[in-house]
């Protein structure tokens, strides 16, 4: 049991190190950089050109992509426990998993045929 936690202690240490590194870099930067405030410096950087104000409503097409991503992410989560237990689950598990994946592939085919993946 303690071994389980010890393994995750490494994860915690890494997370701590990452946070410390970010703090360190920003902190050192703050200490050594010169401070000369100018109004222009506070404008949002938009690849060189002046930013156009307001809120651009994004295209609904992006949403379909995000949704496809969620659905196939959920599918992936179901594949993990099957993959690590492949041998004891045997042919039965394989067949069930193939059915599961095929049904979801049909969803991808649907999205494709209906043209929501086309970007024109």
């Amino acid at each position: 049991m303690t071994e389980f936690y010890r393994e995750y202690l490494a994860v915690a240490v890494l997370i701590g190190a990452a946070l410390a590194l970010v703090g360190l870099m920003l902190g050192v930067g703050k200490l050594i950089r010169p401070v000369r405030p100018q109004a222009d410096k506070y404008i949002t950087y938009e690849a060189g050109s002046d930013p156009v104000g307001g809120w651009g409503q994004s295209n609904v097409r992006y949403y379909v992509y995000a949704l496809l991503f969620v659905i196939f992410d959920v599918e992936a989560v179901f594949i993990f426990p099957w993959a690590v237990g492949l041998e004891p689950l045997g042919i039965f598990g394989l067949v069930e998993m193939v059915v599961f994946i095929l049904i979801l592939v049909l969803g991808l085919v649907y999205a494709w045929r209906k043209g929501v993946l086309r970007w024109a």
Partner: protein
Amino acid sequence: MWGQQVVFWLLAIAMGAAAIGVVRSRDVVHSVLFLVVVLAGAAAQYILLAAEFVAWVQVLIYIGAVVVLFLFGVMLTRSPMGHDSNRLDNDQRWAAGVVALLIFGVLTALLVDAFGGQQINFGPELVAQGSPQAIGSDLFRTFIVPFEVVSMLLLAALVGAVVMARKD
């Protein structure tokens, strides 16, 4: 196991503070980012309970996918992302606070009454229970019908979402 207790309380306090941030924040995008902290805290709590697989599902699905969906959803709206305090606030916030505290109090009292003083026996078998192998074995032995129906459900969700999102 006082180490677990300390980690639990650290996580719980961070999660509680971030949860308050979710509802208090005037900026929807900030709310979503606070939500990431809450969800990550929940994942860490699962690790603390030796439920390894659930913890990583939490990271993959919730932090990885659902939050992305939230952000896309926010970007779809027409409202400016700025600090429009009228839209995200409500006169009923005190009533909501009272209700939330009441539910918290009642559930805490009942949870302590039901489970107070009980110890979870941490050991290798608990870790094994939360492993992907054990979940896979349950999935394919007991829950095979729900498993296959979930694929039909996801297919229907996809079809429905595409219908709703199509412009024609």
